[in-house]
């Protein structure tokens, strides 16, 4: 079963290296003993490959039982018209697991922390749901989970990573646009990609040092989008009904 999955992922091409790295069993052991010598989990999103199918959005929702109206990850979709020619632009968004997370600084109860392996997490047994971190996050990556009544966000599917699996969004991505791995491992797919390609991050000016890197991110999309909004924001109508 495990080797079947590995073989399948190998077919996907750009995730091959990541799959081999995970298949070796290294991340599983490392996730249990995070430390300065341990892994530093990051994600690379290759926008040249993303087709905007939202499979990652759905897989994340199913895997993490995210209530209706909330999103741990989402593919923003835009219609860009220049020189009279329209085209689609897709931008997968998730928590950037920043090196200098604005959310962690403002949390009054230390419920949200940055782990030694780079993952920013929320302890929902401590979170009081004040929403200060939601305000402080420049990336709209956090929301209030109306079921747990606490703040919710992407965890890089830590429960899966711990078991030697890839995050749900990465595993389900049909075009292999999401690549996940250990930045500290020079042989990992993410380290290789970061070495070979110029990469961009969202809202660099915020000084949060995001650990989700994009390949092929158009400058018009790296911050607040200067444009119009035609549809209801994702989940807004559902959130209204839930309320």
């Amino acid at each position, binding site marked *: 079963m495990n080797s079947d999955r590995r073989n399948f992922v190998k077919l996907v091409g750009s995730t091959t290296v990541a799959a081999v790295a995970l298949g070796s069993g290294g991340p599983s052991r490392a996730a249990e003993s995070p430390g300065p010598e341990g892994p530093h989990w990051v994600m690379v999103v290759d926008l040249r490959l993303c087709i905007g199918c939202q499979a990652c959005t759905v897989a994340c929702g199913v895997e993490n039982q995210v209530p209706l109206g909330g999103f741990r990850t989402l593919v923003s*979709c*835009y*219609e860009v018209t220049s020189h009279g020619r329209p085209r689609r632009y897709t931008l997968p968004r998730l928590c950037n697991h920043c090196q200098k997370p604005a959310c962690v600084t403002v949390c*009054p109860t230390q419920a949200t922390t940055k782990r030694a392996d780079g993952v920013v997490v929320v302890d929902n047994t401590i979170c009081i749901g004040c929403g200060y971190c939601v305000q402080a996050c*420049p990336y*709209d990556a956090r929301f209030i989970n109306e079921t747990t009544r606490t703040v919710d966000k992407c965890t890089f599917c830590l429960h899966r990573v711990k078991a030697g699996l890839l995050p749900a969004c990465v595993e389900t991505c049909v075009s292999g646009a999401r690549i996940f791995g250990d930045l500290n491992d020079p042989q990992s797919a993410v380290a290789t990609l970061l070495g070979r390609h110029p990469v961009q991050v969202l809202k660099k000016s915020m000084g949060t040092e995001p650990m989700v890197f994009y390949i092929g991110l158009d400058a018009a999309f790296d911050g607040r*989008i200067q444009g119009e909004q035609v549809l209801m924001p994702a989940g807004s109508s559902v959130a209204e009904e839930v309320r």
Partner: protein
Amino acid sequence: METKIIELIGPGPHIHWGLPIVQDIFFTGISTGAFVLAALVYGFNNRRLAPLGRLALIVSLVSLLAALLNLIADLHQPGRFASLFWRMHATSPMTWGLFLLNAFLLLLAVQLFFVLRADFRGQARSEGDHRVVRLLALIGLPLALLVHAYSGYILGVVKAIPLWHSSILPLVFLAAALVSGLALMILLAGLLLRNQQGELPGDLLDSLSVLLAWALAANLVLRLFWYTIGMAYSTGPAREAALLLFGPSFSTATIVEITLGLVVPLIVMSLAPLRRLRPLFFGAALAATVGVWFFRWQLVMAGQLLPKTGAGFSHYEPSFWGSTGIMHVLGNFAFWILLMIVLTWILPWQEPQSSHDHALRTKGA
């Protein structure tokens, strides 16, 4: 040729801080403003304002209690509220604010006790009590200012929201607090205070209106600095925040809040002939109070309506029912009114004549 972007699917900005936060900031502002008045009476022996001293303390206390309820109501896990005390985080302004708010609440209660204790015994206030009251007023003044400046600070540190992220915000908040506190005390004085001839206390109202005029002027000057240096002459996102204030939020931000809430009251409070037209005078005080509420509303809401990552501007209409609805606001005001009625009923809120004399004596000595 220009590139046009239309967002088809995007992360919607959901309003996470709603009407309870607006109410909280409004009431802590009233609390600070009213305490400044009490500090002038008890800390600096201001004779003209003396008849309002006790009422100002009561208003300060009641407003702080009403404000704190909002903070708890706005938590999604209100039952975990107390954990803020032992799970502190030194880098979070909220942790600091918690201790400021509680210290101020304690000080207000002790201050009121020492101010009123002689009355319950049916005696004149002792020298010792006078000294305690004066000391508490002098300690309380910076504490009151800090309590409200913190409300501005808590928003000001949020760099993700360009409308909030300004170092001048705590000062703007203080100016707004003085406006709302003083304007509300004018309204309460008009409602409750009469001199021995049964007339409105003209001298007292004049003193209050001069103070209010200064607060309004300070507010306008700070706004000018904020809107120009912080927004119009600034870059990218901050400029957009200004557009929001003077574009989609024009009716609340520019007409209600700045024109009716600041400019018109400033004119009325500054000109003695206009002040003597009592309906206009009290109307202007009411407009200033309501204007400050709209300032809080506009700042908290408009800040969140500018999407952080998405395109365009968002819209928000509060629900009628629910913990973040209009009924919450009305309920909170009802709580404030109820507590005011109860406290002014059971406590001797009118300053006895002897205290005036004492203030006189102390001043003379």
